[in-house]
């Protein structure tokens, strides 16, 4: 209940500044428009391979940077104001995460729509299931992003996060399939959850709903969501008296 009240508040606040929604999705959109046509012709893969990767890239960039919001809230006293109310610490986290997931959904739908305009042809159930996985991933990323933001000093968050996210995007195989990678890189890539989600999304976009990759991707995304939210909730509690 409190979570919903908070989520609605944050959504209203976020959608008031529409430019922020666009900026958050700009990088994947640019990849789609300026790199996608090249990729689709290169013989490496099709739009059905690229768009799932760009969706995970979007998830990492958009949800991964969400902690930035709490940096400001902390600075302006908003966080203390909320924390002094009886609202549960978990709802203070989940209200924000719900907003981030919704923002990501809007951005992701726009990205998929744009993909269709360029030549993506994925079955609707596959796209929907893929988006569901993506939202789980985003929930975990957003929650962890807040936890990191609360644990660092204010100036550190943006530079640190943007530095960490780039290798994670590259290692996920979002831009080029990891099947092309040398062994060591493939191993490294398998150490991150994002690799499995990318592969899962690709399987779903290809219509292989029960392929091992799809199931593994779903399992990893769900586990990551539970673990991420649990860890972040602990961090939110830790701030307490």
């Amino acid at each position, binding site marked *: 209940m*409190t979570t919903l*009240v*908070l989520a609605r*508040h944050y959504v*209203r*606040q976020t959608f*008031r*500044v529409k430019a922020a929604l666009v900026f958050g999705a700009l990088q994947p959109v640019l990849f789609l428009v300026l790199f996608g046509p090249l990729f689709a012709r290169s013989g490496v893969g099709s739009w059905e391979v690229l768009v799932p990767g760009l969706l995970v890239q979007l998830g990492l960039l958009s949800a991964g940077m969400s902690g930035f919001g709490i940096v*400001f*809230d902390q600075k*302006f*006293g*908003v966080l*203390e*104001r*909320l*924390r*002094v*109310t*009886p*609202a549960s610490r978990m709802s203070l986290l989940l209200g924000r995460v719900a907003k981030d997931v919704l923002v990501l959904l809007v951005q992701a739908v726009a990205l998929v729509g744009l993909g269709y305009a360029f030549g993506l042809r994925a079955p609707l159930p596959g796209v929907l299931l893929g988006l569901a996985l993506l939202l789980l991933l985003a929930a975990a990323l957003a929650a962890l992003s807040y936890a990191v933001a609360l644990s660092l000093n204010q100036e550190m968050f943006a530079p640190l996060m943007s530095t960490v996210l780039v290798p994670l995007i590259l290692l996920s195989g979002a831009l080029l399939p990891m099947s092309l990678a040398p062994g060591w890189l493939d191993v490294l890539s398998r150490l991150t959850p994002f690799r499995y989600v990318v592969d899962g999304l690709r399987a779903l976009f290809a219509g292989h709903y029960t392929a091992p990759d799809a199931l593994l991707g779903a399992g990893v995304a769900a586990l990551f969501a539970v673990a991420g939210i649990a860890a972040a909730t602990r961090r939110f509690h830790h*701030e*307490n*008296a």
Partner: protein
Amino acid sequence: MIHARGLSRTFTTKTGPVEAVRRLDIDVAAGEIVGFLGPNGAGKTTTLRMLTTLLRPTGGTATVAGHDLTAEPAKVRRRIGYVPQGGTMGPGALLGEELELQARLYGMGATAARDRVAEVLESLDLADLAARPAASLSGGQRRRADIAMGLLHAPALLFLDEPTTGLDPRARAALWDDVRRLRAERGLTVFLSTHYLDEADALCDRLLIVDGGRVAGAGTPAALKAEIGPAATLDDVFLSLTGRPLRAEAAA
């Protein structure tokens, strides 16, 4: 309303431990306005953050508004309001929206929250400003908005951290009037920190003078002054208790 014994907080920093608050004993009765007077860095905010469940004490015990601080923080939160020193809203936040959110976090339904916000805005002379972003409010308006934030759920006990710092004399006097009126109308108990002697003198029934995280003296403004001499000011009191004037610190 507040009973604290040996309340302490030590921060661990890179350069070693900082004993911000050292074994404070605090007693505040219902309906009192008690001032927590001390220079910059005396430990006022740290104490307030502990008493409002925002910061875990590293020592001591406290009951606030009838509940143990560390055992029942959620029950304490229900009964207290807190107006932090640094404000409560980001620059883009719309006053009415933020207040409604705050009311709902205290468990009010949508309609009740809207009505309550209108009522509190009215009583603090902010009624026309609900649709305004915080950045467009004057300092005095923003401070009253912060106070509105702490009053929505009609708390029994209100904590104010330097409520009038940065306000002009008229706005300060108006704010004091607001605090007095709230006490008169609702029996509100107020615990406020300040480094202004005139504020302590004009507004508070009782003072705790704090310096270096310790209580250096306590009593009514009149009693504190009487201890020093017939013509003493609170300034003299502060000087005699801590060995230094408050003014220089406050100006820093």
